[in-house]
C-alpha cells in the first residue's frame, strides 16, 4: 500500500505545476519573435501589478490552430494583425480588445562584418549564393521581405537564391550559421538598445513594405479575467513601450 501512496505523491508533485491559472494568473500565447521583450515585460508586470503572466512561445499559425481546438490561452500576442482579427471574426476573441502592441522592423543582415552596406546595395550587386527569408506564406516578416525585394526590383534575380526558414527564428539561424550569406531578419533579432549585436545590416526603411503590425487580443477564455485586462493595459503603457523599442520594434 505504501507503493500507491508514493505513486499518488509523485503524481501530485509532478502535476503541481500544471494546474489551471488562478484568478491572478493569465496564460499568454506569445509570437516567437517577441520572446525576449515579453520576458522582460512580464517580469516588470508581475512586480508592478502582482499579476502573473504565464508565457508560451510559438508561431501564430500554430497558436491559431490550438486556440480553435480549445487551448486555454487567455491573451494572444500575435506576430501579425491577421490572426487576431480572424479569431475575433470567428468569435474566439473578445471584440474591441485588439490593438497593435509593436511594429516589426526588417533588417537585411549578414553574420559577417562589412558584408552588408548601409543602403542594401549588396542585394543588387549579387556575389552571394543564398538569401534567407522567412516563409512569406506563414510569416509577416517573410511577406514583407518579398515586398521589399519587389520594390527594389531584384525579386526575380534573387528568387533562385532564396532559402526559406519556417519562421523568423530559423531564418536568423540560417544566416547566423553562415549557410546563407544574407537574410531578411527581424531587426529585434540583431539589435539591442539601438546597436547591432554582430555582423552587418541594412535597416530596411519602413516605407518599403506594409507595416508589420503585431496585434494583441484577449481571447474568449480570458473574458472577465482581471489579469488579462491588466496585461493589455500594461502593454499600452510607456514603461512597456520603452522596453519594446529597445528591442528594435517601433511603437
Amino acid at each position, binding site marked *: 500500500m505504501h507503493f500507491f501512496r508514493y505513486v499518488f505523491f509523485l503524481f501530485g508533485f509532478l502535476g503541481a505545476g500544471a494546474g489551471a491559472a488562478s484568478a491572478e494568473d493569465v496564460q499568454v500565447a506569445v509570437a516567437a519573435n517577441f520572446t525576449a521583450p515579453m520576458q522582460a515585460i512580464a517580469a516588470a508586470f508581475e512586480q508592478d501589478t502582482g499579476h502573473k503572466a504565464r508565457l508560451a512561445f510559438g508561431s501564430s499559425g500554430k497558436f*491559431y490552430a490550438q486556440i480553435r481546438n480549445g487551448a486555454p490561452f487567455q491573451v494572444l500576442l500575435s506576430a501579425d494583425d491577421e490572426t487576431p482579427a480572424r479569431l475575433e471574426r470567428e468569435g474566439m476573441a473578445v471584440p474591441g480588445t485588439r490593438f497593435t502592441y509593436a511594429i516589426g522592423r526588417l533588417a537585411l543582415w549578414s553574420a559577417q562584418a562589412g558584408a552588408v552596406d548601409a543602403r542594401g546595395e549588396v542585394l543588387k550587386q549579387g556575389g552571394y549564393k*543564398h538569401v534567407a527569408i522567412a516563409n512569406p506564406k506563414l510569416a509577416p516578416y517573410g511577406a514583407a521581405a518579398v515586398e521589399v525585394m519587389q520594390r527594389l526590383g531584384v525579386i526575380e534575380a534573387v528568387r533562385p537564391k532564396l532559402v526559406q526558414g519556417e519562421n523568423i527564428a530559423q531564418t536568423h539561424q540560417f544566416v547566423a*550559421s553562415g*549557410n546563407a550569406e544574407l537574410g531578411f531578419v527581424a531587426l529585434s533579432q540583431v539589435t539591442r538598445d539601438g546597436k547591432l549585436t554582430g555582423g552587418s545590416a541594412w535597416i530596411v526603411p519602413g516605407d518599403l513594405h506594409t507595416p508589420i503590425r503585431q496585434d494583441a487580443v484577449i481571447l474568449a477564455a480570458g473574458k472577465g479575467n482581471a489579469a488579462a485586462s491588466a496585461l493589455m493595459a500594461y502593454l499600452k503603457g510607456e514603461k512597456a513601450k520603452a522596453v519594446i523599442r529597445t528591442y528594435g520594434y517601433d511603437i
Partner: protein
Amino acid sequence: MLTDTALSAIWLTLRLATVTTLLLFLIGTPIAWWLARTRCWLKAPVGAMVALPLVLPPTVIGFYLLVVMGPQGSIGQLTQALGLGVLPFTFWGLVVGSVLYSMPFVVQPLQNAFDAIGERPLEVAATLRAGPLDTFFTVVLPLARPGFITAGILGFAHTVGEFGVVLMIGGNIPDKTRVVSVQIYDHVEALEYAQAHWLSAGMLAFSFVVLLLLYVFNPNGRQR
C-alpha cells in the same frame, strides 16, 4: 486535390528516400557486420553512436548538421575544399542528414540478422574454401535476406517520415528540399487545412501499406 507543388514534393520525397536507402545499405552493411562480429571495446560506443538518432530530437541533429556543414563548420570546410560547396539547402545535404537520421533503422535490423546467423555457417564456408568476402556474399547475404528487407523498408519509410532534420537544413526550396512532411507543415501553418489533409492522409496510407508489406512478406523479420 494534389497540386503540382504537392506532386513535386512527393516526387522529391521518394527520390530522397530511395537514394538514402541505397546509401544506407552501402554504409550500414559494413557497420552492422562489424558490430555483429567484433569483440573490440569500440563496439559499445559505436553501437551507441549509431543508435543516437533514436533518442535525439531530429532538430538537434539538424541544428548540428547546419553548423557543421556550414561554411565555418568542419564538414563545410572539407566540402568547400573538395569543390562541392556547402551542403545545407541542397538535395545532397538532405541525403547526408537522412542517412544519419535513418542509420539505426537500417543498421539494427542488419546487425540482428547477422547476429542470428552465428559463427557456424562462416566456419563451414571457410572449410569449403570460401574466403571472407566470398563467404559474405554467398552465405551471409542470402541468410540475412529477411534482415535486409526489414532494414530497407524501415530505412525508406523513416526517411519519408523525416521532418525535423529537413526543416533545419533544407531551406524549403521547391524541387530541391521541400519534401512532403515540410509541405504538410507549411499547409497547416498557413491554415490550408484541406491540402494538409490530402497529403497527411496520403502519408498515413503510405506508412500503413509499407508496414503491412513488412509484416506480410517478412513475418519473422523482427526476430531474425
